[in-house]
């Protein structure tokens, strides 16, 4: 009974965490620096994690290392052409970025705030208009390169605490025993490509959806590839406009989104079948522009039945709640595209069964990979950074061993709860909107209309 109680106290956690990969007998304790935290992966989320810890007051005397496999990206001057990889940054993410001074750099470079979002169906008139009361900023469209540059600058400013190693890839990891063994090192040992080794009290895996850290730890990953690729491009609008609305239309083949970059430019994210995506990328510019405009403007997928059913509900709402009925607006038309800005990449879903192990935490795409239809991918990653930083900060102020499961499980619970819901909802939406089948179209039409009329968004 005693054992049961001890085990159940942790919700069976003691037995759930199986011994990790290969444990090593480290007989000669080297005089290496023992890092407090090593972040593996210097992308948007990894760099943000290193920044967040570097600027945290309780990490003042700690040693942090960021490992990035690629070269240091230097941006001498902001290029005139916009990059085709952009992210929709939520207000929460903006708060995180400003907490360590990166948002200021972004403001000094360029970004686009949007105040409204129209999401509508290709198979019906149903639409949902999102906006905040007072028309506050709902989100910001920022080029990934701009974010990366801001993060790099802030990292340089705390180089006494945070060391960044570029062109450094970890090739193997050695995990500690679950509890101390005579003469065996309690730290995580990392071997780099050049043969050098590092020791750390906590390893944070921020190395993307094919995470090497996650695989080395043997953490199970639920994943599947969507039968879709996303096509991105930078578009020039036919005429200059206020351009502070984000547009997304659900076509049966996948959602197409237009995100504002400036008065005359918008970014395209079009998720569609692999075949169609390949066609879109290879067709000539005029054809491509026509395809985009028609995707947003054409009513070819409407059917009489759905239109009538939709109108019926619309009249009902107009009667009951006149102010909450939105007229469908049309996005700006596209005139031409930026040369060489057309690119495609495959889409998939992924979720790690565990986000943490003793002395290990996964953040960003290493922990979860999502469809871009909700624009949430990087925001979920920044949310992970925020949560983990908070837990580690408290642990540091309590003098705790940073790699201890007691606070790592707190982070895992926080984020799994949030991320799983979002992942499931996004996946469900993707599946719901991938069909022309009348019953489902009707369901989502009415659902969308009802949501628009009822909820105070």
């Amino acid at each position, binding site marked *: 009974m*005693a054992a049961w109680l001890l085990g*159940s106290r942790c919700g069976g956690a003691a037995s759930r965490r199986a011994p990790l990969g290969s444990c090593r007998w480290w007989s000669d304790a080297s005089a290496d620096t023992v890092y407090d935290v090593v972040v593996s992966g210097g992308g948007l989320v990894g760099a943000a994690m290193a920044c967040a810890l570097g600027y945290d007051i309780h990490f003042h005397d700690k040693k942090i290392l960021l490992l990035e496999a690629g070269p240091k990206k230097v941006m001498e001057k902001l290029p005139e052409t916009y990059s085709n990889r952009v992210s929709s940054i939520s207000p929460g993410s903006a708060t995180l970025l400003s907490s360590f001074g990166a948002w200021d750099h972004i403001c000094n470079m360029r970004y686009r705030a949007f105040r409204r979002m129209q999401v509508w169906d290709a198979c019906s008139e149903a639409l949902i208009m999102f906006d905040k009361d007072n028309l506050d900023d709902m989100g910001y469209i920022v080029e990934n390169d701009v974010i990366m540059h801001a993060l790099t600058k802030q990292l340089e400013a705390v180089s006494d605490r945070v060391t960044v190693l570029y062109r450094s890839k970890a090739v193997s990891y050695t995990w500690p025993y679950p509890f101390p063994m005579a003469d065996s090192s309690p730290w995580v040992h990392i071997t780099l490509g050049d043969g050098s080794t590092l020791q750390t009290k906590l390893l944070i895996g921020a190395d993307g959806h094919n995470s090497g850290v996650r695989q080395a730890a043997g953490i199970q990953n639920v994943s599947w590839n969507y039968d879709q690729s996303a096509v991105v491009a930078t578009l020039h609008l036919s005429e200059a406009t206020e351009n502070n609305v984000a547009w997304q239309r659900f076509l049966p083949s996948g959602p197409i989104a237009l995100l504002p970059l400036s008065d005359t430019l918008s970014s395209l994210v079009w998720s569609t079948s692999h075949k169609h995506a390949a066609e879109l990328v290879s067709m000539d510019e005029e054809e491509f522009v026509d395809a985009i405009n028609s995707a947003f403007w054409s009513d070819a997928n409407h059917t009489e039945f759905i239109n009538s059913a939709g109108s019926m509900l619309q009249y009902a709402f107009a009667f009951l709640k006149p102010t909450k009925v939105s007229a469908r607006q049309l996005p700006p038309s596209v005139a031409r595209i930026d040369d060489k800005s057309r690119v495609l990449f495959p889409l998939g879903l992924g979720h790690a069964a565990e986000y943490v192990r003793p002395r290990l935490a996964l953040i960003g795409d290493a922990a979860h990979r999502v469809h871009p239809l909700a624009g949430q991918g990087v925001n979920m990653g920044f949310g992970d950074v925020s949560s983990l930083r908070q837990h580690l900060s408290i642990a540091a102020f309590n003098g705790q061993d940073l790699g201890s499961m007691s606070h790592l499980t707190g982070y895992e619970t926080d984020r799994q709860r949030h991320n799983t819901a979002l992942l499931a909802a996004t996946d469900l939406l993707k599946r719901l909107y991938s069909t022309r089948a009348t019953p489902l179209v009707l369901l989502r039409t009415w659902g969308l209309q009802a949501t628009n009329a009822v909820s105070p968004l």
Partner: protein
Amino acid sequence: YPWTRQYSTSQTTVDSSEIKTFLTLAHKWWDEQGAYAPLHSMNDLRVPFIRDNLLKTVANHQPGKPLSGMKILDVGCGGGLLTEPLGRLGASVIGIDPVDENIKTAQHHKSFDPVLDKKIEYRVCSLEEIMEETTETFDAVVASEVVEHVLNLETFIQCCYQVLKPGGSLFITTINKTQLSYVLGIVFAEQIAGIVPKGTHTWEKFVSPEKLESILESNGLSVQIVAGMLYNPFSGCWHWTENTSLNYAAYAVKSSDQENPVSAELVLKGETEELQAEASTNPNVHEKL
């Protein structure tokens, strides 16, 4: 266990009986989900308790190392569960314990962390021995889960007083002597649920906060805080509570002026001073109080 297999094939020059003892020890103290789990989670209460009250005594502190510059004595440190967090917060800590194996475990555990290794020193000895061997005094003395194990509480508190700097802080956590603490602390925790290893505690030696307070006050230590602590065996977490009938924590401060305020104790102090004087003239004589 896979690691024992690995060990036997690679290490042949180490004494196997030493390793055996070592294995069971290390396992016990530092396994966060093992037999000492409740002590690990008690850090969530006792570290902030010590840290925050010590921070109140200084004007400003270094961010990142809030306790830097402080000298702390951890009496009955065991495997170093509380000593290490205090060291990580920047204090210079001396951890003492009468059990040789405990100090070995503690020593071994901190040896892997180069920063911590320099901040903490462990010794196998009693509080009286520290008092005799050194004239150094401490900003804080921590006696966590200890006073319910000592032979003479009055003497123990007097020794704490002696080794504290004027104005220094004493932190105690212990168990109250009540019917409830017998039923839950001994019968349930030890004998039924195995939350605490059997035979760890003797109910007769539990100390009520009232008794502790009166001993502290009569020995020049002004009690600032007494707060109850409650352990939830299902969540494995401790919580602060108004109720002190089970576990509780106390924080007392040594008066800032050197004089001992109560006359009855002057006699004892006189004896102590005599003994200390003797000890300094006869370095080979070790008098026990």
